[in-house]
């Protein structure tokens, strides 16, 4: 958190705090001091369990949720929350793909018209969109060109998600934020869509912030991975390194809990306890009540994310 923002970063989130207010209760810090960078052409996987604040972070990055403290800047432009007026054209280079493929397309408009919105957005930003057509984009995401004349409900979940991706891509994003884009899809479609997102982002030189609770998919498509727990990033690093050598006890627990389809009948390891209420997070390290390796002091000292990307007192080198 004390690190200097990376100069080459496309998106830099610095010490971001996002709160939700409920009447008659203290505000809930869904995101409690997160710093994160995404560079152009880089795929960053953000993983964590439900309620850890990863979707809130995604929404804040897109300006859909106002932040309390800290800053989000996209290519030097601060990201401001969306109001009644049009979005700042500079920010339309950030596009988002949502979780629910059934909710992400307007059921009353033809698919082609919705993708054309994206092309207009790119044109409005002064990009050269000569010859870009909804049909081309549909072909790029692996759908037949004649899909443009049909309505969203004529497609399956996986196909709709591809259409949503085509729509986001049409706007020529430089940063694509994907919030659980595959969790509502069929197992067979999940990997295809995830791979497609990676290749399309990397091809166009855009950054991709891929949010998912499915570590095995993130592992395949992300260059870098960030693990979130209860509103904070507990570990971050090169995907393969984190996968092979997880350091934070939470990352270790997450990886151990994935059942492997090896036919061996191994029961995955269980992480006892529930995620605490984000409105009343535990003192010290937020993971300490469930941590199998907690020791004296974990309930008092707040570990900060070290330069080598882990927020845990087991690794004092960071201090």
């Amino acid at each position, binding site marked *: 958190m004390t690190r200097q923002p990376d100069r080459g970063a496309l998106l830099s989130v610095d010490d971001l705090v996002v709160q939700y207010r409920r009447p008659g209760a203290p505000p809930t810090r869904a995101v409690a001091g997160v710093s994160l960078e995404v560079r152009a052409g880089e795929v960053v996987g953000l993983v964590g*369990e439900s309620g850890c604040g990863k979707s809130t972070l995604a929404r804040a990055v897109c300006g859909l949720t106002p932040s309390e403290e800290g800053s989000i800047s996209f290519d030097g432009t601060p990201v401001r929350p969306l109001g009644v007026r049009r979005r700042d054209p500079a920010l339309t280079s950030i596009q988002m793909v949502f979780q629910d493929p059934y909710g992400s397309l307007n059921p009353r408009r033809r698919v082609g018209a919705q993708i054309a919105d994206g092309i207009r957005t790119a044109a409005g930003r002064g990009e050269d969109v000569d010859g870009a057509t909804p049909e081309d984009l549909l072909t790029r995401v692996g759908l037949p060109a004649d899909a443009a004349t049909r309505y969203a409900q004529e497609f399956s979940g996986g196909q709709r998600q591809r259409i949503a991706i085509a729509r986001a891509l049409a706007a020529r994003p430089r940063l694509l934020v994907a919030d659980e884009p595959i969790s509502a899809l069929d*197992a067979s479609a999940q990997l295809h869509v995830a791979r497609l997102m990676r290749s399309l982002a990397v091809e166009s030189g855009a950054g991709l912030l891929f949010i998912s609770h499915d570590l095995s998919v993130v592992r395949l498509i992300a260059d870098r991975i960030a693990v979130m727990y209860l509103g904070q990033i507990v570990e971050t690093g090169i995907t393969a390194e984190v996968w092979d050598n997880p350091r934070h006890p939470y990352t270790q627990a997450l990886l*151990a*809990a994935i059942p492997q*389809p090896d*036919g061996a*009948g191994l029961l995955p390891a*269980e992480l*006892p306890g529930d995620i605490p209420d984000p409105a009343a997070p535990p003192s010290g390290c937020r993971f300490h009540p469930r941590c199998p390796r907690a020791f004296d002091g974990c309930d008092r000292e707040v570990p900060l994310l070290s330069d080598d990307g882990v927020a845990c007192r087991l690794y004092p080198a960071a201090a």
Partner: protein
Amino acid sequence: MTTTETPEEAGGGTAAADSGIAAADSGTAANEGGIAATGGGTAEKGAAVLEISGLTLDLPAEDGTKRILHGVDLTLRPGRIHGLAGESGSGKTMTGFAVLGLLPPGARTTGRIAFEGTDLLTLPPRQLGALRGRAVSMMFQDPSTSLHPMLTIGRQLTDHLRHHLKLDRKAARARAAELLGQVRIPNPLEALGRYPHQFSGGMRQRIAIAIALACEPKVLIADEPTTALDVTVQAGVLRLLRGLCDDLGLAVLLVTHDLGVMSAIADEVSVMRHGRVVETGPRGRVLTEPHHEYTRTLLDALPGRSTV
């Protein structure tokens, strides 16, 4: 250490059913003879408790009828978990519904679903209703929709017990607390007075299991029981299901698209596609040496496999 699964844990994982289950089990002596718990992952086979043979299902569609199941054969045995894999639309959920007689109106079935020799398909609705819940029970993917949000857990459990087992208020309450203990809900007596929203997703799914087990069914149909849960929570629920199956001699039909889940707790695996069972066999064999092309495709589509 939770980082890696040690061989001892793995091997004994099912048989060494954690003390929590073992303790709770003492209360369920109601599991009268006839069912011998087969224990762990042995290949020993008991008598079939539920036998589905040649099951076809037609549902009314816009233009006439649509065949959903094309002759499904499945055998469930006590103390065994039978995994049913396949993509959405393959008919795996409908197979579960057919066993419970929970088919949409207008559905037509042929074939046979024999529960201890009685064909459920030809059973009059009244008797089927009596059997449902007591002999065959079901749990669903999303515990937040299968529990009534406005009733306490205790009320939901005791209503069920009093209706089906005709227990009096006091006995029902005692049994309810015992059931919650069995699914390892902390402080069962106190939990009875709480509402579903006061529990986490994993705890709610445990409660759903408790309700499903309330009438001591011999068959449990678990439709994507952990799909809505996070991995760390899923691990606990899988462990619980495996333990209950071993301890109570329950026959479980585990419907899931997740082959990892399947690999963790199923004894036998059937793979469905377009309303047909394309492959059935012991878990280890099906997942490592699939015979059918489609099973291979499913396995290849998995993130874990494609790079290794």
